[in-house]
């Protein structure tokens, strides 16, 4: 194998090792957002949405315009289910 190829290979391995090292050594215990969620009782993400848009999911009809068939459960669903 020629030297340049070995160098390229080593560089790639080094990059891979750095990424794997970061993944394995990442302190997940420090980044628990469950505490804030349990304190506020809200799990919704802090989406940077306009005032007119719902900040908390689940309190408007959860219907995605891209998936009109994705209906939220509501009173009518219940009635039809009977």
């Amino acid at each position, binding site marked *: *194998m020629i030297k340049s190829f070995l160098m390229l290979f080593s560089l790639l391995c080094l990059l891979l090792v750095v990424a794997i090292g970061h*993944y394995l050594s990442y302190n997940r215990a420090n*980044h628990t957002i469950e505490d804030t969620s349990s304190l*506020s009782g809200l799990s919704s*993400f*802090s989406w940077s949405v306009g*005032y007119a848009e719902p900040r908390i999911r689940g309190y408007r009809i959860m219907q995605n315009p891209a*998936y009109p068939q994705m209906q939220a459960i509501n009173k009518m669903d219940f009635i039809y289910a009977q």
Partner: protein
Amino acid sequence: MLNSTFLHFLTLLLFKQKSKHIGTVLVSVMLIFLLSSVLFISSSLESSLMKTLQGEADFTVTKLKAGETTQTPNEWMDKIEQINGISALSPRIYGRYFYAPKEKSFLIVGVDFFEEQNAKTIQKLIDGLDLKAFLSTDSMIVGAGVKQFLEAHYFKNYFTFKTSQGRFKKVKILSTLPSQHNLIANDMVLMPIELAREVLGMAEEEITDITFNVPNDAEWSTIIAKLHLMFNDVRVVEKKEIQKAYENLYNYKGGLFLILYLITLLTFVLILYQRYTMVYSSERKEIGILRAIGWSIQDILKLKFYENIIIVMVSFVLGVVLAYGYIFMLDAPLLSQIFLGGANLENYVVFTPVVPFGLLGSIFLFYAVPFLAAVLIPAWKIAVIPPKEAML
């Protein structure tokens, strides 16, 4: 065939013809980088969301008025409590405060700090917080995004809320929530329940909604039925429904990029096929010489296969590692806005590394198989020509 001479010849060939490969590698790296970035960010957000959802109550009950949610009467709590099989019934008080001068909004959340569990959690979140001092004056704890916004608008220690009654309420900014929690707390303002009621203009007997758990899954539909029979104007939201909505949202955003990727990949493979057809036509002589000195068609194809598998591997590893660094080390500048929005306060989120290995494997297959096919088919077409003809 895979001896050191072959490897030497292979690597020599790769570097000798590097100008031929460099463009392919660059485009491939860019494609894989973009797709992996989107998948990484979407997987990380989804995983964080699922974790926070674990703590969410099974059901949320809200009052409806004219099809829109409105304040829920406090007395509903007593009625719901009568239903058998319900546990952890609790009221929630929250709402958005609109800061008209800058058209930004904060999420005001009322927390019962007298409850032991809440007091412990807030002290765990904020080191050295004096809860007594916090509760003795009108104070609040703000998210990092709110703090940054208020400081930029000269509200260093206090902020004056304008209540719905038109009165002004001066509230002390006591502390900031850790920036690692920006994902859910960036625009959040935590304050005692009574203060939150005053700021949001809610009456004493009103709450935003009611949450509760039903430990026995089999009773869920019965509980929903009972609630609908008990109240005429109620919306019951199940946790699993919210979970499904979130999953669909991220699958939708990730899927959109996947479709774009597939279209781009198809175009790329077509270009590659045409390009290699032309390149190999000009390399007919080279392939003819190899055939003349005794290389079989299989050997030629092996050489081209290994040559291109190296290119595929280099591009894939580079693309994925760069995407990993961009998302989890640099926290995805620009791209995070697509997933988190940018209409309100700026949000700087730390993404928890989550690597979807299954998806990465699929991307590799979707990329490597068409790539190798687009390169090997033209090579095979040349290799089957008799050497004498090929060298003409």
